[in-house]
């Protein structure tokens, strides 16, 4: 158990400049690979909290990571990032991509014992898309026939969702959409028990078809959630774990202390210093995994406001940023990334250079924009100071200071304006409110449409809640994005997105800078874990090989 005395001595040794080594990893039951065994509780934590476990409402990373334990989908991404059957044994794409027919498994039951059928799937989807449901992702499904009438309360059911048999469901779209299948992996498309009813209820206890289920008392908001094995799970022999416990609102240093003494089995929220300590300790190397680069970061340049309504100024910004310095802020989590499509997404072309650091080129762009700048005298450049909206205490507060330093070298002076997270979100999505701000995007599914449509399509612009924070309008790009939705051939689709990527790198509505990946450390007794290309915590085949049956206590939740 961590003691105050231990902490004090660590601190004093630290002040004296002594590098305090990490403790050795706790030994596993077997040093070598053995067959998976069933049992045990896997414990991890998050500095965040969960607002809702209803798949129709949950839309943040922490909640979604638990939602996938409780709710299975018709189809889901496999370990290689390919769509694979789950509740649907197979599916067909018909009528030129406007109809999707799913053949459901017949051996699936909900956690409450009721059978899973096509009618239940239709009810679940209608519930998730019902106008009274606070579903932030509902508009993703606007392509379903009858969506407007249904959400406008003109009709009681969604015409586009048809029950063709007890275990056959088809969904009709108004136009072909190659990106529709990935949408069926998202939480709102995961079926919920009949007890959920036809409309959203805030007090409904989460119940689905997933590998784990939530029992009464298993969730204390702001404290923990404990999900236990679903004995009726449709995949024979899985899951291996008896239970998974996730503790909330635990700051990174506390997580690390608890991990060191064996009270946590898996940690992802590390301080900068702790990532370095684990990364350079040889004894821990076999227990470290790095997740895929799902998030992209960049500097959003409002193309409707001066000076960024001038493409040459945007190009100057993109060329002036030395991205190597950005990665030093969180070396174990940030990588240089210079284009719009995340590296882990199909359609990403590693040969494409994207935007790159070129100080002389940036000065030339400033000259072409009509704002020549002489670095020797400091004369010239853009004459006004540009406000840069940022929230406190995050990565962006630090990278914002680097942006400020680096842009001053080409005559662009920015002033950091620190506002609360809520103000930052609200203002940066409002038209005409913010000239420049740091932005990030975590894609919901590994498809370029999941990034490019919300961030750069003109259809994503609206006056108050614009996910296109650069308010970028380009008819050519809009045309390409629309074409990509109707193109089902993977190679031709990749080529279209490659062209989009080139346009965005050149037009620079964002100066792309870095991508973020998770740095995870697990106890050696955590076996069968591998980072998933989409899901945050992939414990579907994880099992525990503890050396001892005595498990340190985590407090009242146990």
């Amino acid at each position, binding site marked *: 158990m961590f003691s105050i005395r231990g902490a004090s001595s660590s601190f004093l040794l630290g*002040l004296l400049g002594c590098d305090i080594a990490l403790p050795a990893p706790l030994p596993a039951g077997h040093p070598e690979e053995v067959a998976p065994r069933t049992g045990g509780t896997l414990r991890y934590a998050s500095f965040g909290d969960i607002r809702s476990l209803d798949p129709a409402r949950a839309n943040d990373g922490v909640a979604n990571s638990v939602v996938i334990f409780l709710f299975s989908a018709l189809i889901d991404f496999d370990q290689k990032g390919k769509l694979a059957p789950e509740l649907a044994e197979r599916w067909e794409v018909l009528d030129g991509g406007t109809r999707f027919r799913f053949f459901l498994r017949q051996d699936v039951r909900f956690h409450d014992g009721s059978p899973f059928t096509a009618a239940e799937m239709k009810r679940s989807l209608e519930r998730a898309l019902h106008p009274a449901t606070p579903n932030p992702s509902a508009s993703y499904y606007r392509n379903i026939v009858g969506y407007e009438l249904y959400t406008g309360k003109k009709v009681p059911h969604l015409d586009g969702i048809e029950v063709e048999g007890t275990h056959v469901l088809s969904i009709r779209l108004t136009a072909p959409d190659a990106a529709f299948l990935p949408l069926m992996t998202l939480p709102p498309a995961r079926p919920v028990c009949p007890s959920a009813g036809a409309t959203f209820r805030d007090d409904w206890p989460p119940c689905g078809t997933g590998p784990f289920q939530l029992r009464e008392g298993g969730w204390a908001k702001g404290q923990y959630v404990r999900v236990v094995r679903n004995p009726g799970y449709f995949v024979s022999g899985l899951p291996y774990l008896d239970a998974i416990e996730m503790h909330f609102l635990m700051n990174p240093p506390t997580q690390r202390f608890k991990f060191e003494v064996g009270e946590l089995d898996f940690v992802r929220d590390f301080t*900068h210093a702790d990532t370095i*300590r684990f990364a350079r300790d040889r004894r821990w190397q076999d227990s470290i995994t790095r997740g895929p680069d799902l998030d992209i970061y960049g500097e959003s340049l409002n193309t409707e406001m001066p000076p960024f309504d001038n493409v040459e100024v945007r190009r100057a910004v993109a060329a002036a940023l030395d991205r190597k310095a950005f990665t030093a802020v969180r070396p174990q989590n940030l990588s240089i990334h210079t284009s719009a499509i995340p590296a882990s997404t199909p359609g990403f072309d590693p040969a494409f250079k994207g935007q790159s650091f070129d100080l002389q080129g940036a000065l030339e762009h400033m000259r072409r924009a009509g704002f020549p700048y002489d670095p020797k005298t400091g004369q010239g450049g853009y004459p006004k100071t540009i406000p840069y909206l940022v929230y406190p205490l995050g990565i962006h507060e630090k990278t914002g200071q680097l942006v400020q330093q680096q842009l001053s070298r080409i005559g662009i002076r920015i002033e*950091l304006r*620190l506002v609360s997270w809520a103000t930052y979100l609200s203002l940066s999505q409002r038209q005409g409110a913010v000239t420049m701000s740091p932005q990030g995007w975590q894609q919901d599914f590994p498809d370029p449409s999941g990034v490019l449509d919300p961030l750069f399509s003109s259809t994503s612009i609206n006056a108050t809640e614009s996910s296109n924070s650069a308010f970028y309008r380009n008819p050519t790009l809009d045309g390409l994005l629309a074409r990509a939705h109707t193109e089902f051939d993977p190679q031709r689709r990749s080529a279209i997105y490659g062209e989009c990527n080139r346009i965005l790198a050149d037009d620079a509505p964002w100066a792309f800078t870095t991508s973020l990946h998770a740095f995870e450390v697990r106890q050696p007794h955590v076996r069968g874990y591998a980072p998933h290309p989409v899901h945050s915590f992939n414990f579907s085949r994880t099992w525990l090989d503890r050396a001892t049956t005595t498990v340190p206590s985590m407090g009242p939740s146990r």
Partner: protein
Amino acid sequence: MNAHEALRKHSTLRWGSFLVSIVVLFSLVGPWVAPHDAYTSNPDRAMTDALLPVGPSIEYPLGADRLFRDMLARLALGGRLSLLIGIAASAIAATLGGLVGIVSGYAAGKKRAAILDWTLMRFVDVGLSFPFLLLVMAIGALLDRTTVTSLLATLGVTGWLGTARVVRAKTLTVRDLDYVVAARALGQRHVTILWKHILPNVAGTLLVSATLSIGQMILAESVLSYLGVGLSPPTPTWGAMLYEGQDSYILAPWLLACPAVAIVATVLGFNLVGEGLRDVLDPRG
């Protein structure tokens, strides 16, 4: 008793003055003698192979910060800011608190004027019932953007309540002294009595209270910066530097130690000076 004699007799005042002098000197001279600019990152020279900022060395006497900037220059600049905010906010608070305290104390117990004392003191009671930092944070959130001026105003406007209480109590004892009664009997105007007879006699109390509050103001500014509601970066503030350093205390202890020592030394210094002044000005108190 002159200043030299006071310093000789009172060790508290001596040590406090010494600490304050060191901090003031460091803050004034530090940015000039620091080998690097406080705002410029230099990862080429200030980053180790382990991707950490360099520790104290000849080139970087206090090491470098997380963005590979000179800690010495940033600490000294942060000191200027802390001293400015601490002293100016205390001056605002002392002026407001002194004014309210004197008026309230002078009016207390008088037939018609007592309502003024009652109103002012109930206002002070209500103000004191709010936790100081919470009040400051709430005002800061309303302003949406924190600047030196807004921080000064916020700390000054919320920091006078305690001073008003102390000054009122002192005024209550002074106003009944013979020379004040005599001045009143001679028909002097209230403003003249307050200015010429009451104020000089409560000035010592006011000075002690103001000096003690400088440390509290500096601490409050540091707490606000630590919580992320202080001045915007890249302005160096000790609180923000403390926040940045807390995660790295094992690998880069100077990030935490430098601002922590600076805050402790400054707050301790001003508190000792305040205590010393109290001993000098009010030996019986």
